[in-house]
């Protein structure tokens, strides 16, 4: 990993030295400029053939691109120089860094060099965090639903208003209908706008620092496919050192790093309690039935749910690649949210109280299984397994601590005739006006028909 990380930087540096544009080099070796860009930013690892082609084009030996005797400091400085060159004139220094004298610089001013390298690493880490935030904002289900409402209302208004303005000879019945449309859609637009403003206000209050430690943890786990393979063998010293040394970009806050270390502790304990081979064997024999697997192997159901959602089977090609998971405490506060295709979990506030996850809280240790249909413009069905597990961390005299977990699987029986329990994501984006558990009005003015 480290070696390939160096390769991209070296390619970028050599290319800049030769005054080649990214697009020209990419064309010369028969790859797309976008792919070369990924390689140069060390996001993709070039194979040996491609590396040889790049080396030939850059007039160096392949080994010069893939290996080097210089330490991390040189690489960090090269990275900084390449980034400055990319930022273009006005963004970086007017005089380009003297790459050919990098040894002299490091030799004479090791302290300054180290500072420069550290600053560059910090900037890089922050840039990735900002990218992550932007992506998560785009995935916010409330904003997505609001945007769809606004666009639909505006689309309707625009077409209808144009018809009314441009058609001289429109029949009276159509004219009346289109007037009514304009009235309806303007009401819908103003209601959605009010909802958006209220939501953005609460967003500002909730987010003093743009993100919560839990979100940082989730972003880190999502980037690793939600499973840390090293926890299977207990060989997590390297990852732990990287986390503790603030070397993981997604885990920017100390609280998030503490959460990540606690997550590793727990994942290791769960891997010992339910090793991957035993889980795989039980899955093959009993199918994706967590309750049966728990009974068969004598493992707590909550552990089985977590292993199915976060264990080795969840990776690409795993038996349960598409499984989602939500964990919460007795106050309903999220402990972990792993989304799955078609189901983006709420970022703020409480979710739908009808979720089996919350139902499980009232019946500790009782396994719950329910097929649910999540209301929305596109209703989605899932099969949920949930259980709440009590613990007494201060002994039996102390308070009981409850943790609930819910495994979310794509519905194996997509027949719409099968009964499913209607639930939502959160009241504000739920279009079920008749829901008895409704906490606050929805911003979706139109219910599903």
């Amino acid at each position, binding site marked *: 990993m480290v070696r390939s990380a160096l390769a991209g930087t070296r390619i970028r540096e050599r290319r800049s030295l030769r005054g080649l544009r990214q697009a020209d080099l990419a064309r010369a070796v028969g790859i797309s400029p976008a792919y070369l860009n990924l390689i140069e930013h060390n996001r993709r690892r070039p194979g040996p053939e491609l590396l040889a082609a790049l080396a030939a084009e850059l007039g160096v030996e392949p080994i010069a691109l893939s290996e080097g005797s210089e330490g991390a400091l040189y690489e960090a400085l090269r990275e900084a120089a390449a980034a400055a060159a990319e930022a273009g004139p006005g963004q970086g220094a007017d005089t380009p860094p003297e790459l050919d004298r990098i040894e002299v610089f490091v030799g004479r001013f090791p302290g300054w060099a180290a500072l420069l390298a550290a600053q560059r690493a910090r900037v890089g880490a922050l840039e990735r965090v900002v990218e992550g935030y932007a992506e998560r904002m785009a995935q916010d289900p409330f904003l997505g639903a609001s945007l769809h409402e606004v*666009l*639909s209302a505006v*689309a309707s208004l*625009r*077409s209808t208003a144009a018809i009314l303005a441009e058609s001289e000879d429109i029949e009276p019945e*159509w004219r009346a209908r289109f007037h009514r449309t304009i009235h309806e859609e303007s009401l819908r637009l103003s209601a959605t706008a009010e909802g958006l403003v209220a939501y953005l206000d609460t967003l500002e209050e909730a987010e003093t620092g743009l993100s919560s430690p839990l979100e940082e943890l989730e972003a880190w786990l999502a980037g690793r496919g939600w499973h840390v393979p090293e926890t299977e063998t207990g060989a997590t010293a390297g990852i732990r050192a990287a986390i503790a040394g603030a070397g993981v970009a997604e885990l920017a806050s100390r609280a998030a790093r503490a959460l990540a270390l606690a997550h590793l502790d727990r994942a290791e304990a769960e891997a010992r309690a339910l090793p991957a081979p035993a889980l795989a064997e039980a899955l093959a024999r009993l199918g994706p039935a967590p309750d049966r697997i728990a009974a068969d192997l004598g493992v707590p159901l909550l552990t089985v749910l977590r292993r199915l959602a976060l264990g080795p089977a969840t990776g690409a090609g795993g038996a349960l690649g598409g499984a989602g998971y939500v964990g919460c405490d007795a106050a309903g506060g999220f402990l972990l949210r792993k989304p799955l295709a078609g189901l983006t979990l709420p970022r703020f506030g409480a979710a739908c109280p009808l979720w089996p996850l919350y139902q499980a809280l009232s019946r500790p240790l009782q396994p719950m299984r329910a097929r649910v249909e999540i209301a929305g*413009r*596109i*209703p989605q069905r899932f099969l949920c397994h949930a259980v709440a597990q009590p613990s007494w961390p201060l002994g039996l005299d102390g308070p009981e601590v409850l943790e609930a977990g819910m495994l979310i699987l794509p519905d194996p029986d997509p027949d*719409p005739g099968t009964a499913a329990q209607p639930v939502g994501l959160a009241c504000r984006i739920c279009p079920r006006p008749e829901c008895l558990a409704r906490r606050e009005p929805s911003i979706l003015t139109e219910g599903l028909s």
Partner: protein
Amino acid sequence: MRSGRTDAALSGVRAPAGRGGAGGAPARRLLLVEDETNIAEAIRFLLSRDGWEVMHCRDGAAALAALAEARPDVVVLDFMLPGRSGLEILGALRARPESAGLPVLMLTARGQARDREAALRAGASAFLAKPFANEALLAAVRGLLDAARAAASAVSATPPGPAAGQG
């Protein structure tokens, strides 16, 4: 207005008479799949005035069921539909031999590149982002029909005529 799966909200209002189809030109049939009633009404009005025979379905399942009866020349398909998404319906259309080559205009409420990419892979013929200008919609469906008829006549090497269209 066709009977069958048309929008109940519109059943009391007769569609305006067509104009563009005068002069013995073949009927141009369009299947509109859109869950937003008000948008569907506006589109139906516009296209009917342009000489199209419009059949409207509120969701994809109804659209797939109505396909044989509707025998459309062009499909206008909303991206965000209740039940099965527009993308799924597009996939189902492309999987059927009778509609594999049918021109499909996708309406996207989100002009996002990711959605368009997915729709392109699934076989969308063209896109129109909401909100759209009415002229843009008319131009898009006319263009799709012209292209399909040109392709059909090129394949069968017969001059364009009533037999050269869809069906």
